[in-house]
C-alpha cells in the first residue's frame, strides 16, 4: 500500500468542495482512502500518528492537504484528478488582469482599480481642479492639488469640507509632498525617519527634506499646504491639520514647519497648536524674527538649513548647534575670489526654486544692502526689466513672468543657461549664484547643461580678461534618479563651488563680495599711497 500527500499553499475551498474532492478521489479505483483537509497542527498530528503523512512536513493552517493511500498507479491518477478539480474552480483570475489594463479615466475608475488608495493627486487645469478635488473628497480620499489657478473661495470650501470629514487637502499649487515614503510632484527620494514636515513652500520642503537625508536622519511624512494656506482667508487649515496629524503619528518624533511669514493671527494660531503638539516643533517662517516665534516646545529656525539642522539634532537626541562653514569651502571661495578684477563687484543669483530665491534675497539684503529682483522684497528694488539685471540681482526663473509659454527651469535649463552667459558678459559681475534641484519631476541631468553653461561663461569671461566665481547648492539625495554625488561632482568639475545648502551658498557669496570689496579698498588705499 502506497501513500501520497500534497500540500497546496493558501488554498481555500469551501467544505462542500473539500468533501466532493475527497469523495471523488476515494471513488477512483485503487485508491483506498482519500482526504482533503486543512493542514492544521491538530490534523497533521492525527494523520502522522496514523502514518498517513510524514512528521517533518511543514505546512501552515492555511494550506490544503490532500492525503491518499492506495496503489501507486491509482494515486498518481488521483493526484492528477485532484489538480484538475482544484484548478477548475476559483483560482486567481486572468480576467482581472485584463480589466487592470484599462487606464482609469476618472477618480471613480481609479478608485475602483485601486480601492486601497487614500489619496488623489489632481493636476488638471485650475478651472476644473476644484470640482475634481471635491469628487475625491466625497469618495473619502485625501487630496494633493497640484493645480494652480484655483479660486480662493474653492480652496476655502475644499479645506472646510476636508476638515469636517477628517481628510486633508494639500494645495492648491502644492508641488511637493512625501507621503508614506512616496515622493509626490517635485520631491526627492529621502530616507524614512521620524521627522515630519508641513510646508507652504515646495522648494523649501525639498531643501529641508534633502538636508535631513544628507545629515543622516529621515522623513516620516512631508505635507505640502499650498502657498495660500497661511493667508488669513484660508486660515492655515492644512498646516493646522498637518501639525495635528503629525502630532498623532507614532512614526513622527519631530515636526518641522516651513512657510513665508503667515498672516499674524494665523501665525499665532499655528504656534499655539505647535506649542501643544506634544513633540518638538521646529518653525522656519522664512524671514520672520526667530525671537518672535519663541514658545515652549517651539524651536525657531532662521533658515531652511537651520530648520533641517535643528530637526536632525532633535531627532538624534543631540543639542542643536550652528557650525561654522566648512573651512575648505571658505578657502575655495577665497581662492576663487582672489582672481576677480577690481571692477567685479556684483552678484547675480539665478534661481529655479522660488523659496531659494526668497531666502537668498533676505540673506543677501542683510549682508550686501539692496538687492534687485523681479520678485523684490522692497518695491524700490524691482527690476525695471526682469530680463536685465541691475547691480546685485537675484531672480526666480520659475516665476510666471519667465515661464509663460516655457517649461519650468527645474525641467528645462535652457533659459538659465542663456541667462548665465548674459551675466558672464557683464564686466561688473563677480559672482553667479545658482540652485540645482534634483528629484522626481526635475531635469534628468541638470549638471550636464548647467555645467556646460558655466564652462562656457567662464571661457567668455576669460577671453575678456576676467574670472567669475560660481557658487551654488544642489538640492537632492543620493537616491534621487539623477544621483546627488554624480551631479555635484560634475558641477564642481565645471567650476562651481558647492555648499550643502542654499543658505550656506549665499553666505559664501557674501563673503566673496566682501573680500573683493576689501581688496578693492586696500588696492585703492595702496594706489593713493603710491
Amino acid at each position: 500500500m502506497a501513500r501520497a500527500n500534497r500540500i497546496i499553499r493558501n488554498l481555500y475551498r469551501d467544505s462542500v468542495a473539500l468533501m466532493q474532492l475527497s469523495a471523488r478521489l476515494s471513488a477512483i479505483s485503487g485508491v483506498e482512502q482519500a482526504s482533503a483537509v486543512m493542514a492544521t497542527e491538530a490534523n497533521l498530528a492525527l494523520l502522522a500518528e496514523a502514518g498517513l503523512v510524514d512528521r517533518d512536513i511543514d505546512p501552515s493552517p492555511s494550506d490544503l492537504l490532500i492525503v491518499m493511500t492506495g496503489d501507486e498507479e491509482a494515486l498518481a491518477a488521483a493526484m492528477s484528478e485532484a489538480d484538475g478539480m482544484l484548478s477548475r474552480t476559483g483560482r486567481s483570475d486572468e480576467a482581472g488582469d485584463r480589466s487592470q489594463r484599462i487606464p482609469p479615466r476618472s477618480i471613480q475608475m481609479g478608485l475602483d482599480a485601486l480601492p486601497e488608495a487614500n489619496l488623489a493627486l489632481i493636476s488638471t487645469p485650475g478651472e476644473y481642479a476644484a470640482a475634481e478635488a471635491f469628487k475625491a473628497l466625497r469618495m473619502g480620499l485625501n487630496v494633493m492639488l497640484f493645480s494652480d489657478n484655483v479660486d480662493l473661495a474653492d480652496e476655502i470650501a475644499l479645506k472646510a469640507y476636508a476638515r469636517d470629514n477628517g481628510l486633508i487637502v494639500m494645495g492648491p499649487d502644492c508641488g511637493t509632498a512625501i507621503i508614506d515614503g512616496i515622493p509626490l510632484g517635485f520631491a526627492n527620494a529621502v530616507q524614512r525617519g521620524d521627522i515630519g514636515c508641513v510646508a507652504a513652500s515646495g522648494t523649501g520642503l525639498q531643501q529641508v527634506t534633502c538636508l535631513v537625508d544628507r545629515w543622516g536622519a529621515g522623513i516620516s511624512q512631508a505635507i505640502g499646504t499650498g502657498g495660500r494656506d497661511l493667508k488669513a482667508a484660508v486660515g492655515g487649515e492644512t498646516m493646522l491639520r498637518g501639525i495635528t496629524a503629525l502630532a498623532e503619528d507614532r512614526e513622527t518624533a519631530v515636526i518641522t514647519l516651513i512657510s513665508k511669514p503667515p498672516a499674524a493671527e494665523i501665525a499665532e494660531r499655528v504656534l499655539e497648536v505647535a506649542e501643544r503638539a506634544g513633540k518638538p516643533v521646529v518653525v522656519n517662517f522664512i524671514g520672520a524674527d526667530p525671537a518672535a516665534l519663541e514658545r515652549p516646545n517651539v524651536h525657531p529656525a532662521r533658515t531652511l538649513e537651520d530648520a533641517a539642522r535643528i530637526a536632525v539634532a532633535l531627532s538624534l537626541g543631540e543639542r542643536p548647534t550652528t557650525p561654522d562653514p566648512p573651512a575648505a569651502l571658505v578657502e575655495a571661495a577665497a581662492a576663487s575670489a582672489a582672481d576677480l578684477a577690481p571692477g567685479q563687484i556684483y552678484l547675480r543669483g539665478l534661481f529655479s526654486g522660488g523659496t531659494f530665491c526668497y531666502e537668498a534675497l533676505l540673506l543677501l539684503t542683510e549682508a550686501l544692502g539692496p538687492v534687485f529682483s523681479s520678485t523684490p522684497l522692497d518695491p524700490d528694488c524691482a527690476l525695471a526689466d526682469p530680463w536685465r539685471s541691475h547691480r546685485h540681482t537675484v531672480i526666480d526663473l520659475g516665476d510666471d513672468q519667465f515661464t509663460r509659454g516655457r517649461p519650468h527651469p527645474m525641467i528645462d535649463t535652457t533659459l538659465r543657461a542663456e541667462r548665465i552667459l548674459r551675466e558672464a558678459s557683464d564686466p561688473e559681475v563677480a559672482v553667479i549664484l545658482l540652485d540645482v534641484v534634483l528629484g522626481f519631476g526635475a531635469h534628468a541631468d541638470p549638471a550636464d547643461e548647467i555645467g556646460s553653461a558655466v564652462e562656457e561663461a567662464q571661457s567668455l569671461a576669460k577671453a575678456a580678461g576676467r574670472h567669475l566665481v560660481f557658487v551654488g547648492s544642489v538640492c537632492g539625495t543620493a537616491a534621487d534618479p539623477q544621483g546627488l554625488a554624480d551631479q555635484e561632482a560634475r558641477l564642481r568639475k565645471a567650476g562651481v563651488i558647492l555648499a550643502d545648502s542654499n543658505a550656506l551658498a549665499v553666505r559664501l557669496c557674501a563673503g566673496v563680495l566682501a573680500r573683493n570689496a576689501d581688496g578693492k579698498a586696500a588696492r585703492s588705499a595702496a594706489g593713493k599711497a603710491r
Partner: protein
Amino acid sequence: MTAGGSGSAGIRLNALSAGHRAPRDRFTGVVHSVFRRACNIEREDGGMLVLLAAELGNAPHGVRLETPAGFAFDRHIAAGHGVGCRAGVLRVGRSGLSVDLRDAPTWRVDLSRLCLDSRQPAVAVARRAARQALARSRDRAGPAGRRTLAEFAHERLDLLAAATEAYAEQEAETAVQRLIGTGVGLTPSGDDLAVGFVAGLWCTAGSSPRRAVFAARLAAAMCRAARTTNAISRAYLRHAAHGHVCEPLAELAVAIASAATEDAIHAAVDRAVAVGSSSGHEAVRGLLRGLGAWAAGSGSMAAIPESIRRPAVKGVGAMEPAHG
C-alpha cells in the same frame, strides 16, 4: 461573466446589514478567499471581514449584501484583489465591485446577555427538542463514514465538556487546544464545535460569576489556540470567544433560552445546520454541549443581585439603525 471581467462595468451592491464587529469606516485589505456566497477579506490590521450573500444570516464580522438572484462572489472577485473602504463605500479592486455600507443597520449579538438557566424545565425541554432535531439532520446528512478526523474532534469535545462540567480549567484549556484545528472542512470540525461550545457557555455564564470566570478563561485559551488554525476559522473562534456568533446559531440559542415551541426549535436547528457543509451541524452540536455543561452544576442565579441581572433574550441579537 468571469472573475474581474466586470471591472469596467462596475457593480454596486447595497449592504443589508453589518455585524457590529465589521468595520465600516476607513480600512484597507486584500481578498483572502472567495466562495459562491461569501468572500473573506483580510484587513491590513489582521482582522477579517466577510461579505455574505443576502440569503445567509448575519455574522459578527460580516456584511450581508443585497445580492441579486444568482449572484456568485467567485464570478466577480478573486483572492488577492485589493480592497479599500473609504467614506462608507467598500471597493474590491479589479473586480469593479463596490459595496455601499452607509445605510446598513448594525446587527449586534452578545450571548453573554442571555443569562440562560439550563436547569429550568422549559429550557431543558427546548434543549431536548434541539438535540432531536440535530440527530434528524445528521441522519439526513448521510452516513458518517470517512469522517475519522471529525470523530476525533467529537471525542475531544467530550473531554472539553467533561472538564468544563468539573470546572477543571487546566484540563479544559488543554482540551480546547487539542480540539481546535481537528477535523474535516474548511473550518475544521473541531473549530466549529469549539465555536458552538463556547457560545453555549456564554449563554449560561451570565447567571453565575463562577461560570463567567471559567468561560472567560476558556475563551482566552481558545483565542490563543486559534493561532493553530486557518484565518477564516480563527475569525469565527475569536468572535465566539466573546459571545458573538453567527445569526442562525444565535437564533437557536435565543429560541432555547425563551423555551420556544418544538416546531420553532426544529426550524431554528434546521437553519443553523444549513450553514456550510458540516460547520453548522458541528456548531449546533457544540452549542448544545455548551448549554448542557452546567445543567446540573452549582452555578446559581442567586449569586447575582436581581438589580444587575440582564433581561434574558431581549437584545441578544438585535438590529440597530445605521449610524445609530
